[in-house]
């Protein structure tokens, strides 16, 4: 079997085939038992949840089907911040069962602190170990962990995955890139786990050092998560290192990397549904969206002991990819994260994310990656204009070429996003450049698309 790049693939590997390919009915039965036990655990051990349940007049015994999840209260990021440091723990922090603490960076408020029991850590490792298998690894593999070790869940999450897989672990952490390259080569590393940008830096450093890692290094796979990775960047890492790159998703609040992970077919991330229930919610109504539509991702943990969460609203936007995956896993797939609910626009009732514009524009070689969306009101209707700049060698001497480009981009946006957009080619560098987060959306509407 060969993949899209013509590379010959060996047989698919699985770490826990009985779970990863479980019959959906059996999996849902398992989820229900675990959901009931999680709800009881939360109610009995965490005052926050007891209050929230009582306010809604719900008891753990009311959960008799997976559909009953809809009755349960949500958990928000702010709830986690307010619980700083240990108020959402099911056990006191000095309880012998609490083995480890991780914390998110807390750039916009209090850090969120998460506790893990031994069992939590093992389950986490199992989910990461599945990813190692997805990218072709097994207990004979040498795994180089170049995520930072520490409070950040990347390094130790990958490390636990290596332990559960019984692979050989090279715990590099990040930094000292030349040494990373040297050891990768000298030791014959099979799989690299790090952020995509660091994988690219390692590849470029190897090339700078005079190596041709694609040909000369043993490495065959990379697990690259924790930050967005465009398809172009993925292909670049794959070509330079001679590897298959898979994406991995996770939030420290929920567990860490491994909540979902991509198999080598690179078409969505399989959610560890034996440990988490994923919901996709309409950010306005908080009702589930039809399968395949975009919405806010919420997770309910099913096995976590120290820091269980019920319907945690991640503010990440994704969707469920319908249909079966060629890898044979029955665990459903979520699409890559499309953005944050904070960025979502509601245009004539349609939910749209700026990143979706970026994706469409990336398929047009005539325009640069700078763009700006301007929203105005035209009577009761929203009107959207997308400003783009052409690349320097675009020949604009013929007006119909510009008009044709505008028309083609507009048609592509309409078919992809179901919204009507007026595309406007603008003068070079007239779109604001920013070193930090670019201001992609100017909303001049009288009504900014309703309540959010």
């Amino acid at each position, binding site marked *: 079997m060969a993949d899209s790049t013509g590379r010959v693939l060996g047989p698919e590997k699985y770490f826990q085939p009985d779970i990863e390919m479980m019959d959906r009915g059996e999996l849902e039965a398992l989820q229900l038992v675990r959901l009931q036990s999680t709800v009881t655990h939360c109610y009995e051990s965490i005052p926050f949840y007891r209050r929230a349940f009582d306010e809604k007049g719900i008891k753990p015994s009311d959960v008799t089907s997976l559909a009953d999840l809809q009755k349960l209260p949500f958990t928000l990021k702010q709830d986690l911040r307010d619980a700083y440091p240990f108020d959402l723990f099911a056990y006191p922090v000095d309880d012998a069962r609490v083995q480890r603490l991780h914390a998110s960076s807390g750039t916009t408020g209090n850090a969120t602190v998460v506790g893990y029991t031994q069992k939590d850590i093992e389950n986490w490792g199992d989910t990461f170990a599945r990813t190692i298998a997805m990218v072709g690894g097994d207990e004979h593999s040498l795994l180089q962990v170049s995520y930072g070790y520490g409070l950040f869940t990347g390094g130790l999450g990958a490390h636990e995955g290596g332990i559960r897989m019984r692979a050989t672990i090279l715990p590099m952490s990040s930094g000292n890139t030349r040494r990373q390259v040297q050891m990768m080569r000298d030791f014959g590393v099979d799989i690299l786990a790090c952020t995509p940008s660091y994988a690219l830096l390692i590849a470029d450093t190897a090339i700078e050092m005079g190596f041709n890692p694609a040909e000369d290094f043993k490495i065959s796979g990379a697990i690259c998560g924790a930050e967005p990775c465009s398809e172009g960047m993925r292909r670049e890492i794959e070509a330079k290192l001679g590897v298959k790159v898979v994406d991995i998703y996770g939030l420290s609040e929920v567990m860490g990397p491994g909540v979902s992970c991509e198999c080598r077919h690179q078409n969505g991330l399989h959610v560890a549904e034996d440990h988490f229930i994923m919901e996709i919610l309409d950010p306005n109504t908080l009702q589930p969206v039809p399968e395949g539509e975009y919405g806010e991702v919420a997770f309910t943990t099913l096995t976590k002991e120290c820091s269980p969460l019920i319907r945690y609203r991640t503010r990440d936007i994704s969707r469920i990819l319908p249909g079966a995956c060629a890898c044979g896993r029955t665990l459903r797939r979520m699409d890559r994260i499309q953005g944050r609910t904070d960025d979502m626009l509601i245009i004539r009732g349609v939910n749209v994310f700026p990143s979706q514009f970026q994706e469409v524009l990336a398929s047009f070689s005539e325009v640069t990656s700078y763009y700006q969306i301007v929203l105005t009101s035209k009577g009761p209707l929203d009107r959207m204009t997308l400003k783009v700049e052409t690349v320097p060698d675009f020949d*604009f*001497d*013929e*007006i119909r070429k*510009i*008009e044709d480009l505008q028309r083609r981009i507009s048609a592509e946006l309409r078919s992809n996003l179901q919204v009507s957009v007026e595309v*406007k*080619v*603008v003068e*070079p560098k007239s779109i604001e450049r920013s070193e930090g987060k670019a201001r992609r959306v100017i909303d001049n509407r009288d009504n900014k698309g309703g309540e959010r």
Partner: protein
Amino acid sequence: MIDQITVFLENDKGRLAALCRTLGDAGISMHALTVADTASFGVARIIADTPREAYAVLNEKGFRASLTKVFAVEVSDDAGGLAALLEALDAAGINVEYAYCFASGAGHAVDILRVDAHEEAEAVIIAAGFRVMEPRELYA
């Protein structure tokens, strides 16, 4: 063939004035200017002295300028002069993307033509009895 400067302009107040001021401040003299406008943008086409320098100055000042090869054809300043030229090109199946004219002051007009198939077009123009002008006849 001669170098025409093409500048992409947004339909914003003062952009054309800024364009002309930029060339004026650089001491570059214009011989012809035509602006094609659409609902959302315009394209200015300019015949000026030292087109390469004009191109460099404009891009440096943040304009989106490019150089386009066009034909300058000398046509008698009489009724039907341009029609005869265009008929010849049409008969040869050569598509004219756009055209504009200006009077040179010496009893004849200059027609600027943007066509594809440059070599073939030049042969057709000459065979039809017209003279293709050299850059030095038009600009310094």
